């Protein structure tokens, strides 16, 4: 089963949360079906869904018909999907996550998972770690790379 991950879902942790929510929903649905068979009047409300789960179900309507299979697919995806870690200078906002996730899933891999971290000393930019590769595109690295130019710049002031 191939899923389209919504941009609000970033990391394996997010997928784990979704799996828990789906399992909870699955249990409720089974219970609901049983009660519905026993009694015609069932008034129990389904458990609340997170916006991420709603988005997932909305973007994968066909795959959502079989919840157990969806749960298995998500579990497998959590374990097998390529994962990168992005460190920003501040906690990633939803907008930033959305922008970055969209770009990464469009350009790198459609099912890629992204773990977001933050480190204020980066000052800006980001550090991306993909496996053993680390790409430092932070402001701090750029400043450090140009540290030899500081004295010259200051002498010219």
């Amino acid at each position, binding site marked *: 089963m191939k899923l389209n991950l919504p941009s609000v879902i970033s990391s394996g942790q997010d997928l784990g949360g979704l799996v828990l929510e789906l399992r909870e929903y699955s249990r409720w649905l089974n219970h609901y079906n049983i009660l519905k068979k026993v009694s015609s009047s069932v008034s129990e409300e389904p458990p609340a869904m997170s916006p991420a789960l709603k988005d997932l179900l909305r973007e994968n309507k066909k795959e959502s018909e079989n919840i157990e299979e969806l749960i298995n697919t998500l579990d497998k995806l959590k374990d097998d999907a390529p994962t990168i870690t992005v460190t*920003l*200078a*501040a906690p990633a*906002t939803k907008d930033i996550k959305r922008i970055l996730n969209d770009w*990464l899933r469009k350009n*790198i891999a459609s099912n890629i998972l992204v773990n977001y971290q933050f480190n204020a000393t980066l000052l800006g*930019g980001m550090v991306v770690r993909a*496996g053993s590769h680390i*790409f430092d595109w932070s402001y701090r690295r750029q400043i450090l790379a140009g*540290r030899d130019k500081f004295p010259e710049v200051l002498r010219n002031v």
Partner: protein
Amino acid sequence: MTGEQILQYSILADIFFMGVLVSVAIRHLYLHFKHKNDPIEVAKPHEKPQGAHLPPAVRERMIEKSEAEFESVLNKSAEQLQHDLQITTGQLNKKLERLGSEIIGTEMRRYHLDIEKLRETTETAMTGAQSQISQHQEDLKTKMAKRQEELEAQMVENVKAEQEVMIKNIDTKLADAVISFLTETMQHDIDLGSQSKYLISMLNEHKDELKKGVADEA
């Protein structure tokens, strides 16, 4: 024939004559005293003397005359001998004096020559030594000048290197200070929203590297 040789020959002739006179006188004295003191002749005259028939007074007078003549001749010979001896002595003294003077002069000349040679040798040695000393001094001056230049060049290099190290240290400290200042001032209120374009541009710029990294991880 030099005067010196003539003088030598005359001295030898004088000595020869004196020897002849001395030998004649000695022989005469010997015969005189022999006839007078010979007991045989006195006791047993085997023949009469020539003047035996002469009267004793005449004979006595002749004997005295002979003795006087003999004494006179002897005295004259002695005087002559003494005179010759004086002359010879004088000449010998002169000769000895001259020889001494010549020897002393010769020795003095040799001494002066030796002294002169020694002085020349010493002067040559001194000149050589002075030349060597001058050469050595020149060498020392050259070496000292060269060494001084080397030391000066080395000192300049050391000062320059030290200066560069200090400038580098100052630059490093300055850069650290600037970075610390930027880090401290910029890490507050970071707006990620304004960085989204930069982040996307970085991703686009390193898209292939990122793909490769993800592929390697897979």
